[in-house]
């Protein structure tokens, strides 16, 4: 790891710690986490799935809201590295997804179709419970190296601490309430994306980026803004307007080495 990389890592840790304030929005936090994973770990895409307490896994955050990536995360409710990771509590790696068809019959075709050839999943562990998994996805044929996955695990641990931190949770009741709130907020975000997409004639990724940019530039919580959109009380034109200094965030690209 060179100096520049170390500095970036330090900045990310400070940024994540800074979000752990009173008015903490778990989905916003996880969204930041997966963005930073893509930048720091030099992976193509990243996502977080959470256990829904009903026996399923639900997507909570994705580094891009492109339909294909969302589908790669969603399908792991059936099989895939995240499901295995949540069940075993261990990290799960595959450097060649094409060879894993028998292991993950549903996940592999969807992942390959989306262009991913390697994947890893690290657990988000809270004492005895695994509450979810951080998924790193690669388009390249490069080997999934231990160092990168370990750094991913470190970031997942920071995220898990963040979940605890919000309400000093040594308390399964509060944890359940918090996770269920986040999962319902995720549904609200999807509903809001639909509203914005219909209003502006834009795709779901654009709709999400408009939502997040507007929330950030107006200091609003992502979940609250999404709720006003889905309830039909938000100013949709203002949210969809391109910010004066900058453009909508595009899908993160792999940074040249």
């Amino acid at each position, binding site marked *: 790891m060179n100096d520049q990389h170390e500095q970036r890592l330090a900045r990310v840790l400070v940024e994540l710690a800074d979000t752990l304030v009173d008015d903490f929005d778990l989905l916003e936090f996880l969204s930041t986490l997966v963005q930073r994973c893509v930048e720091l770990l030099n992976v193509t895409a990243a996502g977080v799935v959470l256990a829904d*307490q009903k026996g399923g896994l639900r997507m909570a955050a994705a580094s891009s809201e492109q339909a294909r990536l969302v589908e790669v995360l969603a399908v792991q409710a059936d099989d895939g590295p995240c499901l295995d990771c949540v069940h075993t509590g261990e990290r799960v790696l595959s450097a060649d997804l094409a060879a894993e068809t028998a292991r993950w019959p549903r996940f592999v075709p969807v992942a390959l179709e989306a262009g991913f050839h390697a994947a890893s999943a690290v657990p988000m562990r809270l004492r005895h419970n695994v509450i979810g998994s951080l998924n790193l996805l690669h388009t390249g044929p490069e080997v999934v190296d231990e160092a990168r996955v370990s750094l991913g695990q470190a970031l997942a641990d920071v995220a898990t601490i963040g979940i605890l931190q919000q309400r000093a949770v040594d308390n399964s009741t509060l944890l359940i309430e918090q996770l269920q709130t986040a999962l319902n907020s995720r549904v609200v975000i999807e509903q809001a994306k639909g509203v914005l997409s219909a209003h502006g004639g834009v795709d779901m990724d654009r709709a999400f980026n408009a939502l997040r940019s507007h929330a950030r530039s107006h200091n609003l919580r992502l979940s609250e803004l999404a709720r006003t959109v889905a309830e039909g009380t938000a100013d949709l034109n203002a949210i969809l307007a391109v910010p004066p200094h900058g453009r909508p965030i595009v899908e993160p690209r792999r940074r040249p080495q």
Partner: protein
Amino acid sequence: MPRPERVWEAEHVVVVRRRPTEGPAMQDHRLRLRALLAGDGTRASPALARICALAVSELAVTGVGVTLLDQPGAIDGQQQLARATDAVAAQLEDLQFTLGEGPGRESVVTGAPVLVPDLADAGARWPAFTAGAQLAGVGAVFSFPLQLGTIGLGSLDCYRTSPGSLSPRQVSSGLVLAELAFEAVLAAVTDHAPDDLGWISDIHVEVHQATGIVMHQQSISMREALMRIRAFAYAHELPLAVVASRIVDRRLTLDADE
């Protein structure tokens, strides 16, 4: 490992039925609860009443009530008592309606369950409700919202005379039964079969996106939009995910009268 059964394929959407052998015991748990609801032999009793009765035994609580919001989605709408397994459960619903506070109301606002293992701790949270509930002999309350994103229909409110936490499995049962109650309420206000339950457990994100699109296109409520998409899928014998995908891709626009 058995291959999944491919039941429908259209464009890039593939709907695959879950393999019953897969996944943790929780998946079996959901199927078991549904089987219990379907097979209790008292078809005359409404689905919500059966869900309440099952919640009493599965969560090992004293009584259960389902409260519905008069105007779904609007928490200020007048609440209507839908079902209660006993007089105390009915009284708790009445208290929450009269006072405008309590675990069920809070669960609909937050979209998450509100679990209070010891009601004695809730005096600051809901002063009037707590006092009234304690007078009625209530020791613990557990409320699960009937909710899908911004579509809030009401809550499944459980109480026990003695304090004590729910086990993780009991919490899971509460969440699954609230999901089934949500479906039962929607089925009751449409022409669908009353036992048309279980579709939310497989719901795809595109269904939520499509619901937002239809809401905006037709200027209707989110709940109404979801019901129209469901009705279209029913009428055309298509999987919900396929209809949603076509709406999201703009290959299908629902007519206002559909």
